[in-house]
């Protein structure tokens, strides 16, 4: 919302600095984003008096002028302007000056003589006769009155106003108008608000003889006010009006169109003026458009309507898109003789829908979308008629045509002062509250501890019902100043703050990953269908049950991810390309599965990580998981061959704990690696966060340290090359022996380089294991040990056809 200071001064005594005004408005809830000076692009242009003019010795068309800019020394300006004379005052752009087209002025030698600046005309200053009489001349602007030499040109031209650019919150559509925002400004300035009084013009004859209005669909158009003016004299609007329109960024067109725009700015209500001769029978019909009906709008574009859009029509054709733009066929032209002013209320949702569907919004539609109200519709049309009358733009006919389904009766609300005080922690009396409300034109009278409030028509945000006390509390708080309300500590019950276990677990997981050398990534939740192809995820895989976003940025961000792997591969690529030298990244994040016909998609939290680089291999990544499990207190984890298609078929493992599958780990398939553009392999793991959390040891308990010594034994065996180490360990642990076998681990694997190498037959390999033997009752003797080892070897032979390697 743009508020020119000059306009504000029409209604309010402006008695503070701009900074103070900005501050006060901010503390009332109106943020002034910018204070824009008039002619903001013009810099270092000032008034000068020409004291001497001589012919340029080297150029017939140039003259050399001495000028006085109020300083001791006079400057020389070389000009080709023919209209300057000695003694006249003109604008001069000095060294470093900026002109409206962004041009910068520098001293220049012109045919051998230095010119220390340049005289300016209206064009260079971006103004014409509207702003300043004589600025329209296609030459240097000769100032009409005497000004001090050296004065800023903006001041000399009387164009030194400022415009406040105010950001409005959506609850205050009434402040989308000069009148509305000035009402608030007056209160902020502590000054009375001189609200404009509209003179209601009763015209000659009867408007019904010229025009009529029918609303087919009052749910979408609760009110339509119209007034008729004949014998139009279409001409430019007066300069004061043009100047104001230009100040708020509107282009003056002609008196009738300018009046509608002026009222839009002044009262915030969008209006339209039809050429009445182009409205068949003068009959305006507000109806839903026919599907596919085409309306050519004022901007010359054909707009195809759909049946859910509201059309302004006459009995034969559309003449405008309701709330968006008028039709070209009924536009005000130089030949228009009679007009119908439309001031209507359209429902925001419908206008929003129409603008979105047509991809076309206007100043008017923006106002309708924010919400307009029915009483203001009437005020606006009568203000337009008053302007027509005052400007002598035509003959006003009869009175207002009004089709109104809206409730325009006065709204009354009762507010409870005690409750308001209890919300704010204040101690206002009812009278004090009434006087605060009066400052923003909300009439209220005290009735005991209650306020009887007449809600002004423009305050659509104030409810009469449940919310009244809170609404009024906000007004009271705002007017009193939030700064003046005390700051207290909450009383009542004390609370024990708590970090929930899932949050605490996440902290632990993340801290451990960081300790293990990983950087934390946060990738967007969006992914593309193509990424699933790149990851070679089969159509039937659960990961394909993606949730699709209806209105994504594009197809490549249209799905909610079901795995974090794609994101990590992309993170890795970024780091590889930028040579950051880091190859370990992890992410803890949610994925979503479209596997739930009832209710919300399943949300699953995952922990995933990637290892990349020459030092990394399957086992370094597996080591990370083992370390993590160790810190988390997860026991009995197993890694068995298997896992997703994105892995190397021979280098992937499914991770389970106590038989519950919690994730997978593997080297990325070389095809996937190439699809993502990575130059060499990486290892990736993905774990289900909540399943992992279920398997942490909830209670940690001390287990006695073995009293009797542990005997460590190593064995080397020869087995089929496909036998997994875990398999052997399982067999060793299952051997029936009288002693305790613990801590079995593999420490060497040897594949023969050629058949019979080191006595290992073809198709076999050698593996060496180490395990601990002990008893809880006594120190083991040789016999115990030998017997145990023998039993283990026997079991290995029986179950795996394993031979002791000699």
């Amino acid at each position, binding site marked *: 919302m743009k508020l020119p200071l000059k306009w504000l001064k029409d209604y309010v005594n402006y008695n503070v600095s701009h900074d103070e005004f900005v501050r006060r408005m901010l503390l009332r809830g109106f943020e002034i984003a910018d204070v824009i000076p008039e002619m903001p692009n013009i810099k270092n242009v000032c008034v000068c008096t020409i004291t001497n003019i001589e012919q340029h010795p080297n150029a017939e068309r140039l003259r050399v002028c001495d000028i006085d800019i109020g300083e001791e020394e006079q400057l020389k300006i070389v000009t080709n302007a023919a209209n300057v004379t000695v003694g006249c005052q003109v604008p001069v752009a000095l060294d470093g000056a900026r002109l409206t087209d962004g041009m910068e002025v520098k001293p220049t030698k012109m045919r051998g003589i230095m010119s220390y600046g340049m005289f300016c005309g209206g064009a260079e200053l971006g103004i014409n006769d509207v702003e300043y009489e004589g600025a329209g001349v296609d030459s240097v602007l000769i100032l009409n009155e005497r000004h001090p030499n050296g004065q800023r040109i903006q001041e000399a031209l009387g164009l030194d106003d400022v415009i406040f650019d105010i950001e409005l919150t959506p609850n205050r559509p009434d402040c989308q108008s000069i009148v509305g925002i000035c009402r608030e400004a007056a209160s902020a300035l502590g000054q009375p608000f001189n609200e404009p009084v509209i003179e209601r013009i009763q015209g000659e004859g009867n408007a019904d003889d010229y025009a009529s209005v029918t609303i087919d669909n009052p749910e979408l158009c609760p009110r339509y006010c119209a007034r008729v003016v004949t014998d139009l004299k279409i001409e430019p609007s007066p300069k004061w009006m043009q100047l104001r329109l230009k100040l708020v960024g509107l282009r003056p067109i002609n008196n009738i169109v300018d009046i509608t725009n002026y009222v839009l700015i002044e009262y915030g209500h969008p209006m339209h003026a039809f050429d009445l001769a182009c409205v068949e029978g003068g009959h305006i019909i507000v109806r839903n458009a026919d599907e596919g009906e085409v309306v050519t709008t004022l901007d010359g574009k054909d707009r195809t309507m759909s049946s859910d859009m509201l059309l302004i029509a006459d009995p034969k054709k559309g003449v405008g898109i309701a709330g968006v733009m008028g039709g070209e066929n009924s536009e005000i032209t130089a030949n228009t003789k009679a007009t119908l002013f439309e001031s209507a209320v359209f429902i925001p949702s419908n206008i929003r829908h129409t603008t979105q569907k047509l991809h076309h919004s206007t100043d008017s539609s923006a106002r309708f979308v924010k919400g307009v109200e029915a009483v203001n519709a009437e005020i606006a049309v009568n203000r337009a008629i008053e302007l027509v009358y005052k400007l002598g733009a035509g003959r006003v006919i009869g009175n207002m045509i009004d089709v109104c389904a809206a409730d325009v009766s006065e709204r009354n609300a009762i507010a409870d002062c005690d409750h308001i005080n209890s919300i704010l922690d204040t101690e206002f009396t009812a009278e004090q509250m009434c006087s605060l409300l009066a400052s923003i034109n909300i009439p209220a009278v005290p009735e005991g501890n209650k306020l009887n409030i007449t809600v002004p028509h423009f305050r659509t945000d104030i409810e009469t019902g449940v919310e009244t006390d809170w609404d009024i509390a906000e007004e009271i708080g705002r007017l009193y100043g939030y700064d003046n309300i005390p700051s207290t500590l909450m009383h009542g019950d004390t609370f024990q703050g708590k970090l929930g276990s*899932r949050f605490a677990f996440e902290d632990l997981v993340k801290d451990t990953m960081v300790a293990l050398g990983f950087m*934390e990534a946060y990738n967007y939740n969006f992914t593309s269908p193509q990424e699933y192809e790149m990851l070679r995820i089969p159509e039937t895989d659960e990961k394909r049950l993606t949730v699709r976003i209806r209105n994504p*940025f594009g197809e490549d961000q249209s799905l909610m991810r079901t795995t974090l792997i794609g994101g990590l591969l992309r993170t890795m690529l970024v780091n590889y390309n930028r040579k950051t030298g880091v190859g370990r990244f992890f992410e803890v994040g949610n994925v979503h599965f479209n596997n739930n016909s009832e209710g919300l998609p399943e949300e699953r939290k995952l922990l995933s990580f990637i290892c990349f680089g020459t030092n990394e291999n399957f086992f370094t990544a597996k080591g990370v998981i083992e370390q993590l499990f160790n810190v988390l207190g997860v026991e009995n984890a197993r890694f068995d061959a298997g896992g997703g298609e994105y892995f190397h078929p021979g280098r992937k493992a499914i991770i389970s704990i106590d038989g519950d599958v919690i994730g997978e780990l593997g080297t990325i398939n070389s095809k996937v690696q190439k699809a993502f553009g990575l130059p060499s392999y990486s290892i990736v793991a993905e774990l289900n966060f909540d399943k992992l959390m279920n398997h942490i040891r909830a209670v940690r308990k001390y287990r006695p340290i073995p009293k009797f010594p542990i005997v460590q034994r190593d064995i080397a065996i020869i087995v089929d090359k496909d036998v997994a180490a875990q398999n052997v360990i399982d067999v060793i642990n299952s051997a029936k022996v009288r002693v305790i076998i613990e801590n079995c681990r593999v420490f060497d694997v040897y594949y023969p380089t050629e058949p019979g190498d080191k006595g290992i037959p073809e198709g076999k390999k050698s593996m060496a294991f180490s395990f601990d033997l002990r008893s809880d009752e006594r120190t083991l003797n040789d016999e115990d040990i030998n017997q145990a080892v023998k039993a283990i070897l026997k079991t290995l032979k029986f179950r795996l056809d394993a031979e002791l390697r000699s």
Partner: protein
Amino acid sequence: MLDELAKIRENALARLKGIKTEEELDALNTEILGRNGALTAILRTMGKLSPEERAELGKAANSAKQALTAAIGERRSSIAELIESVKNERERIDVTLPGITGTPMGKLNPLTTVYREIRDALIGLGFTTFEGPEIEYDDYNFTKLNLPLDHPARDMQDTFYIDEKTLLRTHTSPCEARALMTLEPPFRLVIPGRVFRVDEPDASHSPVFMQMEGLVVDKDLTFADLKGTIDTFVKAVFGENVRSRLRPSFFPFTEPSAEVDISCTICGGEGCSSCKGTGWMEIMGCGITNPHEIENCGLDPKEWKAFAFGIGIDRVACLKYGINDIRLLYEGDARFLKQL
């Protein structure tokens, strides 16, 4: 014999001075004091002497032996000292060479660090963590929060929709509805999470970002309590010297609503380019929970009061670390992460 003894002694002491190694020392020791040593040989001849001579020679020989033993011992320790110092010198290192670690530590994303700081500050004020789903019902995200269909304020938050009823939550506030509907008041909750808005990514916008909501529900809560809580919280997160101020604003789910400004963390409130010369920085929104929301969630707004505030973690991270492009938080560039 006495002369010979004296000669042996003098000679040995003289040679001792030139000895540089333990081996030479051992050899000298054997040569003089060993079983077949020169001094031992003299002592062996004593049996042939008269008792007087024997006593005299014995005394002299013992004194010589003691003196030589002591001198050799002394020499031995000085040689050891020398060897040690040579060794130490040889082992001298350049202590400015870098340390060695197995795998260097990784780094948390600043979003996590900042989230934890804010969260823990609130836990200190008696808040408990709470969470809700990222894909949410329209009803919880909007309608229950006093944003009925076609409410103009829905335009404030451009929404990614899944279907008619489901969307990517645009704020953490739907968790307020979930809490109000499921928990027994009174309570104080801190609710962190990812939220989503249709904002093309640029230096200050991200379609995915982190928010944290505070919600307090109790019988007797005032706007002054909200101010006090915000002030305490701001000091805990940004430092004791940082001031806060509330100014009127609008959110459909609060009434009265306020925007929270903090005194500029760069200039301390003097006014600088970071705060556009105002001395204040906008940090979050807050307010007394709208009675419609309380009612929509099944509580009586006359009985239960509530206030809420929502803070953008990304924004705080950017302010705190002077990050000028929010996209850095989501890019995963290790050079960025390492710095913070």
